[in-house]
């Protein structure tokens, strides 16, 4: 049942590293495929799993969201969205910085708030120019 481990790295370990790298690469490339529709981005803010705000990035003026006793202030400048301040304990959402591309998100786990940038929804995009 028990076996002694190999204590020195082997060439096969590189296979594990490559697999993890490939998985990371695939996941990182995912928004690139989704964002092929060149158009306006949509900001989507969800609190506790429910979308509370969803609008085009250009018309988004930021907002203050309260959830689970925490208050998050989200702001928008030059096409980028960021959490300007939050009173959550770990401040990860503030430290994650600004997002400006489709598929990016800012997550605040203690407050259960997720801010996501989505590629232009296809219904806005149907106007052939």
């Amino acid at each position, binding site marked *: *049942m*028990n*076996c*002694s*481990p*190999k*204590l*020195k*790295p*082997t060439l*096969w*370990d590189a*296979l*594990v*590293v490559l*697999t*993890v*790298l490939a*998985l*990371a*690469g695939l*996941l*990182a490339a*995912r*928004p690139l495929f989704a964002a092929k529709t060149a158009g306006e981005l949509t900001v989507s803010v*969800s609190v*506790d*799993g*429910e979308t509370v705000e969803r609008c085009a990035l250009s018309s988004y003026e930021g907002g203050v969201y309260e959830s689970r006793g925490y208050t998050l202030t989200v702001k928008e400048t030059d096409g980028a969205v960021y959490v300007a301040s939050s009173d959550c304990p*770990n401040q*990860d*959402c503030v*430290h*994650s*910085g600004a997002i400006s591309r489709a*598929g*990016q*998100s*800012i*997550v*605040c*786990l203690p407050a*259960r708030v*997720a*801010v*996501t940038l989505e590629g232009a929804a296809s219904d806005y995009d149907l106007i052939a120019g």
Partner: protein
Amino acid sequence: MKIKTRELTLCAVLAALALALSYMESFFPLALIVPLPGVKLGLANIVTLYALYALGFPSALAILLVRCTLGALFAGNASALLFSLLGGLSALLVMALLRGAKKLSIFGVSIAGAAAHNIGQVCAAMLTLGSGAPLYYLPFLLLVSLFTGALSGLITACLFRAMAHTPYGMKGENHHG
């Protein structure tokens, strides 16, 4: 019978060690260097990895369950239980499966475990948030897990070298009874 008591005691000590390590981790906030939610060193995984090789899967599972339950209890945070359980169980299952691949060293198993831990935690985050947003962080978390996994693999390798003279160092080779 004597061995059984000894193993039970070792399990208890390891569970306590895992709890202490996960508490200690908060003093080394890796999140300050890599600002991502959920980034941490994963030191408690050293205990899981060691227990898996030295004591076997059932003991490693028992230690993990005790660590997660008590950790959530002490932190007074029920949602932390889901995160540590999903992360810890994914890591344990992946490492237990890869342990069978004899060509892999403890480093490969540890890195795969760290990556699985992150995947489990991102799943927990998606469940609690009810949104796919946390998936965006996974590629970065996976990259970080290469380093944290290698680090805990290195520490566990040192641990096995240091314990080589005991029955729980290299059980496969030193199994004299």
